[in-house]
């Protein structure tokens, strides 16, 4: 997947420091994203772009995606996650991709998982880094081109991302 040139630009912290954030926020405001205006979770611009990269113009349905993460993570360097998407996982109807996104890490795209009907179950587990307290978002893409999503808030005691 080729990354949008603005994404690459926004990834540069200098860009934010240079006050480019205001200009970019104006661009994002045109995006049909409830997230762009929703600052309650402290969602980053990087997230807005990563999210847009995944769904394009589509508005995902908040259903069928379950995120299992601790409510409080003592150590943001290793936060266990489990994600499961309800799906028959047949040739005709299965989850093709699952995107794991962070709303407040320096890099929003944490991982993309690819499934096949052979997977049997659209579920995955691992460990992720969380820089600070935030929402973790998972977006699934079905073989029928439908987007589903789920989210979960994790309170982080000691942030991990090695950005200090």
């Amino acid at each position, binding site marked *: 997947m080729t990354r949008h040139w603005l994404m690459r630009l926004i990834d540069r912290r200098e860009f934010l420091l240079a006050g480019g954030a205001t200009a970019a926020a104006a661009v994002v405001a045109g995006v049909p994203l409830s997230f762009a205006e929703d600052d309650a979770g402290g969602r980053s611009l990087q997230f807005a772009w990563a999210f847009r990269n995944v769904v394009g113009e589509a508005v995902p349905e908040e259903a069928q995606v379950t995120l299992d993460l601790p409510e409080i993570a003592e150590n943001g360097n*290793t936060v266990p996650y489990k994600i499961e998407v309800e799906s028959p996982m047949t040739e005709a109807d299965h989850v093709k991709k699952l995107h794991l996104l962070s709303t407040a890490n320096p890099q929003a795209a944490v*991982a993309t998982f690819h499934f096949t009907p052979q*997977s049997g*179950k659209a579920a*995955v587990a691992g*460990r*992720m880094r969380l820089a600070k307290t935030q929402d973790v978002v998972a977006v699934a893409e079905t073989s029928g081109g439908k987007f589903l999503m789920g989210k979960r808030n994790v309170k982080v005691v000691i942030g991990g991302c090695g950005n200090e």
Partner: protein
Amino acid sequence: MAAKARIKLPESAKIGEIIEVKALISHVMETGNRKDGQGNPIARNIIHTFTATFAGNPVFSAEFGSGISANPFIAFFMTVPGPGEFELTWIDDQGVKTVERAPLKVG
């Protein structure tokens, strides 16, 4: 140098059963966000790609970003089509490719 990797499978499985595959690899997963003692940025070195095939057929794969923890652990599922061998591959930013195989007992 290939990193140390481990695969955990059920002792045995039946055809049609959905099994969980767990894999662990030792890797620093350097984010690229950190600086060394002199204030110079430390180059990113993460495992960016993970693939799993069974009996030569793709089952699962993943692309990782710097938000994945050091020594990445991954668990995924597969419907057992018959006997065969898993081949798991990890590739990092320095081009290091680690391949680990594990046969599945079916019966």
